[in-house]
């Protein structure tokens, strides 16, 4: 009697747990679908006022004029360029940091460096933006004799600082997860430490490193506060790294509050959001694909 009661209780416990898990994951999926649907529903109507060719080809972003000019070329390039430059700054630094922490540093130093890096990741982006605005921008303007210290380079540096902890600690984990036996095998064959890292450990961790990098790039692309404060906000295609830019994110953040609901400008901002979403979705899928390829290669 007791046994069978326990048994059925255990069974229903399983059922409840499985229902909860399925329910929660279904909820996540539903929210996702709604966001996508909402972005499309609010973004696509912009095509009533402007052609898709104009959006992607024209750099004229004067949304408050009548009729509004909604060319996003400069804004889209702003996003792509600042993402590229910040990645160029942050990714090599992250790799070197991770290699040093995981492979070279003695354990006491590792125990200091890892938490420090994670702490950097806890810095609110507005604090970084503030630093860029009141410390780096005036200094840059003064020492390079440029028009404004709020520019592409400044924004890229601070975006880089933002993604450094993410990429750094994920790459560090990817390197640490490579079994010690592989390192010993390499050392026993007469390889130096550096040869072992560059020829065995790094290649073996490559799928993890690539997906960490893509995660950092996505983060850099989606970041709003730093670029809103530090990038300068001019919707132009930059000629140099000292020119101000205006990425998609800060455009949405700065203008959404001031635009009438349902106007062409309003729809254009949602369209910008839709673009961001699609780009990050593509990067995400790329990263998942790389990871699955890495798993197959390791089997």
């Amino acid at each position: 009697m007791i046994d069978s009661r326990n048994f059925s209780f255990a069974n229903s416990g399983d059922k409840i747990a499985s229902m909860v898990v399925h329910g929660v994951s279904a909820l996540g999926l539903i929210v996702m679908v709604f966001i996508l649907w909402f972005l499309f529903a609010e973004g696509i109507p912009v095509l009533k006022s402007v052609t898709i060719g104009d959006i992607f080809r024209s750099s004229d972003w004067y949304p408050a004029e009548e009729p509004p000019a909604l060319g996003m070329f400069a804004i889209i390039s702003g996003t792509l360029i600042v993402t590229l430059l910040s990645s160029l700054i942050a990714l090599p630094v992250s790799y070197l940091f991770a290699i040093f922490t995981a492979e070279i540093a003695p354990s006491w130093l590792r125990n200091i460096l890892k938490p420090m890096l994670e702490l950097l990741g806890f810095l609110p982006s507005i604090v970084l933006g503030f630093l860029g605005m009141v410390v780096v921008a005036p200094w840059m303007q003064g020492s390079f004799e440029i028009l404004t210290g709020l520019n592409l380079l400044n924004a890229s540096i601070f975006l880089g600082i933002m993604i450094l902890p993410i990429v750094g600690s994920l790459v560090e984990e990817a390197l640490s997860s490579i079994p010690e036996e592989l390192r010993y095998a390499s050392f026993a064959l007469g390889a130096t430490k550096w040869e072992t890292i560059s020829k065995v450990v790094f290649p073996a961790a490559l799928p993890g490193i690539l997906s960490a990098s893509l995660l950092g790039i996505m983060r850099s692309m989606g970041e709003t506060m730093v670029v809103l404060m530090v990038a300068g906000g001019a919707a132009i295609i930059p000629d140099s790294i000292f020119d101000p830019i205006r990425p998609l994110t800060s455009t949405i953040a700065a203008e959404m509050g001031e635009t009438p609901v349902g106007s062409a400008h309003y729809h254009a901002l949602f369209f910008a959001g839709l673009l961001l979403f699609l780009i990050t979705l593509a990067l995400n899928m790329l990263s998942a694909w790389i990871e699955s390829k890495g798993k197959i290669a390791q089997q």
Partner: protein
Amino acid sequence: MLNINKHSSNDTKIQIETKDLSLYYGQDKVIKNISFNIYERMVTALIGPSGCGKSSYLRCLNRMNDFIQEARTEGEITINGSNIYDKATDVIELRRKIGMVFQKPNPFPMSIYENVAYAPRLFGVKDREKLDEIVKSSLEGAALWDEVYGKLKTPGTGLSGGQQQRLCIARAIATEPDILLMDEPTSALDPLSTLRIEELIRELKKKFTVVIVTHNMQQAARISDYTAFFLLGDLVEYNVTNKMFTSPDDRRTEDYITGRFG
């Protein structure tokens, strides 16, 4: 103490001469003043219960204990006429002359070809034909060529456990070392794979001096020419394998071999 020269005859040359070697891990003395000679192109088995120091001794021979922060050695190991614990020793060069095979097969996550070509490439072999040749002869030497020649580009990690271990042997002999160290190379393998590796070891000793750590007494009896019995960091007995397994000099050896402890 042991008479070091007892077993040397005219046709056997000393390959590794260990003199009064001690190894410490921090305060622990894990190898206690051992001295003996390992002979060229012989299979020498190191046996003894867990924690007796046999694996630690093996790692002294290619200085893999250098990676253990607390490890410290005293005494001498002379290989090819020079003390490997001398300050002037080039550890990289030393490890190139001494191949090592580990307990668990540990092929690199690269193709079979790249696994074997790894060390030759490190030492500057760039010529494709030369590499092809080295890969082929090493895989043949490890009795793996016939099974993999059609799939050299596939991952080494895709092979079976026994094949992986033979790949690791091929990788270790690709630099044409003098000595091959094996740390319980069959302990993770099934009986058939173990048998193949044992056959292979008998082949390998024609070209290399093999030092093998094993937990398996029958294995030591089957494949080795000399056997060293370690106990609690001491070298209790070192003898010709036949003698060791039929009429050991030391009471403790007999007890261990007959399974009374360990």
